[in-house]
């Protein structure tokens, strides 16, 4: 059921369309096996909603083939040549041809666009892994946006929003720097996470070393070298570093496996954590409930399981109000 429209009793069209798109891309561009064909057939037979989403995206995929009509005979062909090639096919109206040419020019621009900053983002509940050409990996957690710029001299990532796990192939000649607001984290051969919140930045060091600098470079920059187990919390003016147990760090990385791990966590904090991953929001109704403590491992996008646990274990009341799940005494 939908995060958004569950209160209407409707199917989650976003989830269905995402699944349909996966099927089509795999079917069209992957090694499509009989097993996958069977899985698709079963999925389509499951509901009309699935079937229609599949039709719609399949048709969209076919329609984008229209731009394939502009495919040049050899790489690097001039635009004029493409214009001639397409002319007989679509010469019914001059306007159509003009549009086709414009499309061709745009397609070429995309192909030869210099690779500078590349943007990646995930939606609420999303999780993606990016493999960089230098062998480094970046995992994006829920609702996260980053920009990457790689040059021969350095590697830069801007964490514009959210949280990411960095597994960096160290290269002394080509430093890897993560920028988040005022702070910079420079890799010295490392695995670490950076989580950006409204007023603070959280850097957890898993392996290796990294240098954290907070504030404008120059006079009042605060700098610290982080070692494994270090968790640095940087606000505008301060940096606090604490050492965490291995298990605590591991739990905090649960999102990489799609789970949230709580250990004696206040309900309000747990709810806040869930709300990062779901459109359906958990609201803790009163202060007494907010301070109750809960432990356990939950799928990060199954907020209902969390509500059930709160109901069953803590004996709380759970009610649904629009998109919210309200938990109270």
């Amino acid at each position, binding site marked *: 059921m939908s995060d958004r429209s569950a*209160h*209407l009793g409707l199917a989650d069209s*976003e989830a269905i369309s995402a699944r349909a798109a*996966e099927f089509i891309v*795999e079917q069209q561009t992957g090694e499509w096996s009989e097993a996958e064909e069977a899985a698709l057939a079963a999925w389509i037979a499951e509901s009309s909603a699935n079937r229609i989403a599949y039709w719609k995206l399949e048709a969209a995929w076919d329609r984008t083939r229209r731009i*394939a009509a502009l495919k040049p005979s050899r790489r690097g062909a001039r635009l004029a040549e493409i214009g001639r090639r397409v002319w007989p096919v679509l010469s019914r109206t001059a306007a159509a041809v003009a549009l086709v040419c414009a499309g061709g020019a745009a*397609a070429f621009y995309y192909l030869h666009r210099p690779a500078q900053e590349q*943007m990646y983002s995930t939606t609420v509940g999303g999780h993606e892994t990016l493999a960089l050409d230098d062998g480094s990996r970046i995992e994006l957690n829920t609702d996260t946006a980053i920009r990457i710029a790689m040059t021969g001299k350095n590697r830069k990532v801007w964490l514009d929003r959210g949280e990411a796990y960095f597994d960096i192939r160290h290269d002394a000649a080509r430093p890897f720097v993560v920028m988040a607001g005022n702070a910079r984290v420079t890799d010295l051969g490392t695995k670490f996470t950076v989580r950006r919140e409204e007023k603070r930045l959280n850097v957890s060091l898993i392996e290796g070393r990294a240098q954290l600098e907070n504030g404008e470079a120059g006079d009042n920059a605060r700098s610290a070298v982080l070692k494994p187990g270090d968790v640095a919390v940087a606000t505008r003016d301060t940096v606090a570093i604490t050492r965490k147990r291995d298990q605590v760090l591991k739990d905090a990385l649960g999102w990489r496996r799609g789970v949230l791990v709580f250990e004696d966590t206040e309900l309000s904090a747990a709810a806040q954590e869930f709300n990062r991953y779901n459109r359906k929001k958990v609201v803790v109704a009163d202060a007494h409930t907010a301070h109750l403590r809960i432990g356990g491992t939950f799928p990060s996008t199954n907020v209902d399981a969390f509500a059930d646990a709160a109901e069953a274990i803590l004996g709380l009341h759970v009610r649904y109000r629009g998109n919210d799940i309200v938990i109270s005494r």
Partner: protein
Amino acid sequence: MSDTSDTSREDVTPRAREAGRMSAPDLRDWFLANVLPLEASLVRFLRRNWRNDSDIPDLLHETYVRVYDSAQRELPDNAKAFAFATAQNLLTDLVRREKVVPIEAASELDALDVALDEPGPDRKIIARDELRRLQLALDNLPPRAREAIVLRQVEGLTRREVAQRMQITERTVKWHLTEGLRALAKALYGDVRGSS
């Protein structure tokens, strides 16, 4: 679709075709040709008559499901009128279920006629509109998704080749293609002026 002169409720009830049920591929073609092109106007209709914009994609999809389920039994004579009546019924059902509070009563539900008065699309306009939409849709894609789609659909590269060219894993290429496809579908079928 050409006959929009009579939009009384009796005429939008589905009638069985003499040939009986359509085959599945025919039904698919019928749906793609007659129902999907209504998406932009259906979205506008739903938006006008529903308070919560974030519900619109699910409402739209439920409308499609109802139209399709009904068409499986009997094919409606006038797909457009039937689709709008279905959307209207859906909203009425939801309001009646009292699970939700209607927007300013359901007074605007009769905006149905407005949507049906729109001129039927002309083939030439469709062709031009299609390219314009495609262009716009491509422009609005995230850069990497656009690059992946163009390399695949224009250059005709395989997924592996796209991965090599973009210097990313095949899995990431798949992700870009999937995201790109969804965004393109929205732009192609939806309201050109905004997201659907």
